[in-house]
Structure formats: C-alpha cells, structure tokens
C-alpha cells in the first residue's frame, strides 16, 4: 500500500495496516522534520510531489522490495504540505516472517525513495527565509 497525504500521518494505523498473522515482526521507519539543516534553525518543512509519478514510483519500489525479499505487507506513506518540527513526513512499515527481511526491505525502501521518488522539500528557517532543500549545494558546483 502506498499513499500521499496532506494530513498528519497516523503511525499506529500504518503499522496496523501491515500487521499479518504470518509475520514475526514489523520494521517501521519514521522520517521526521529535524529542527536544523546546514547549521541553520528550521521551523518546518514543506513538501510537494509530482503526485501521479510519485505514486507510480512508490508502487514500483514496493514491487521491487517484494521481488528481493520475502515480506508479508508493505506500507509507504509520504506527507505533503507543511510538516512542523518533530512530525512525521514519511512512514514505511514492512512485516515479514523473520526480522532480517523486514529490516533490509525497509532500508531499501527509504534509501531508494529519497533518491528516486519525485518529491521535493522547502526548508522554512526560523529567520524567515525559505529555500528548496539542496539547492544552495547544487548551485555551488555549477
């Protein structure tokens, strides 16, 4: 199951969604808004997505994880819009009969999501400036 939502993510319900009687464990990754970036103080992050492609790619990641590991259920939920410090921007939950598969699949899913899925975040700093994440670094090597 993959989804994008403008609302706060209910972590408990994501975990419930991957619970399966044949599973021996559930691995959960929760990505949260950190209060600093590049030495500057952050108020909130604001996410946008190329939504149909993001959904299609998250589905492809789920299929790829299922091909590589024996897992029971997978949930990938990404929040869009403003996410204040401490709140979850992404939750990935994987259930499997044995924990190794769940850990490995979950790690693959978050690592690949961050590299491939067309979602972008803008950092809102406490001094009032707003910048697309990573843009300053990109401009430097031009």
């Amino acid at each position: 199951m993959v989804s994008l939502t403008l609302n706060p993510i209910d972590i408990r319900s994501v975990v419930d969604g991957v619970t399966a009687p044949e599973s021996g464990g559930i691995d959960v990754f929760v990505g949260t808004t950190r209060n600093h970036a590049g030495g500057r103080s952050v108020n909130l992050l604001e996410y946008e997505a190329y939504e149909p492609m993001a959904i299609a790619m998250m589905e492809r990641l789920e299929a790829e994880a299922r091909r590589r590991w024996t897992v029971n259920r997978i949930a990938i939920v990404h929040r869009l819009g403003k996410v204040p410090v401490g709140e979850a921007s992404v939750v990935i939950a994987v259930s499997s009969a044995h924990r190794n598969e769940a850990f490995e699949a979950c790690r693959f899913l978050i690592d690949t999501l961050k590299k491939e899925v067309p979602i972008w975040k803008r950092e809102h700093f406490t001094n009032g400036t707003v910048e697309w994440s990573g843009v300053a670094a990109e401009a430097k090597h031009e």
Partner: protein
Amino acid sequence: MNIRVRLFSVIRDIAGFDEQTVVVPPRADAASVLRKLVQAHPALDPWKGSVRMAVNLEYVSSSHPLKQGDEVAIIPPVSGG
C-alpha cells in the same frame, strides 16, 4: 507534435509556470524540450546538468523519442523522505 511540459520545485519557480504545451518537430527527443525551455528561460542554464527527464511518469534518457501528447516532466534533484 504537441507535448505537455510540467515543471516542479526550483525549476518551476525560476521559469514562472508549472505547466505548458509546447510544439516540437516529429521524432524530437526529450532533451529538445529541455533545450527549448532553457532557451526561453536562460536562468535555468545552471540547472540543465542536474535535472532528470520523465516521460509519462517514467524517468527516461535524454535521447528518448517523444510522441504526440506525451507528458514531459523536468525533475530537479529530489528531496523527499
């Protein structure tokens, strides 16, 4: 051919639009859409080496041939998670 172009994030902010239909010659490739965009918006020039192209919701190489009605997205470095 008519191609629907979609821009996101920093690229959209620089170009000043999020969606546009452009006309390209038959058998044009994905890179030709980016070249056209950079010609119209020279401030995008520093970005042309770091964006990826997607056609109909899939990443493609710059030589990917386009067809009438394709949706081409210019994807700046992603930062989800």
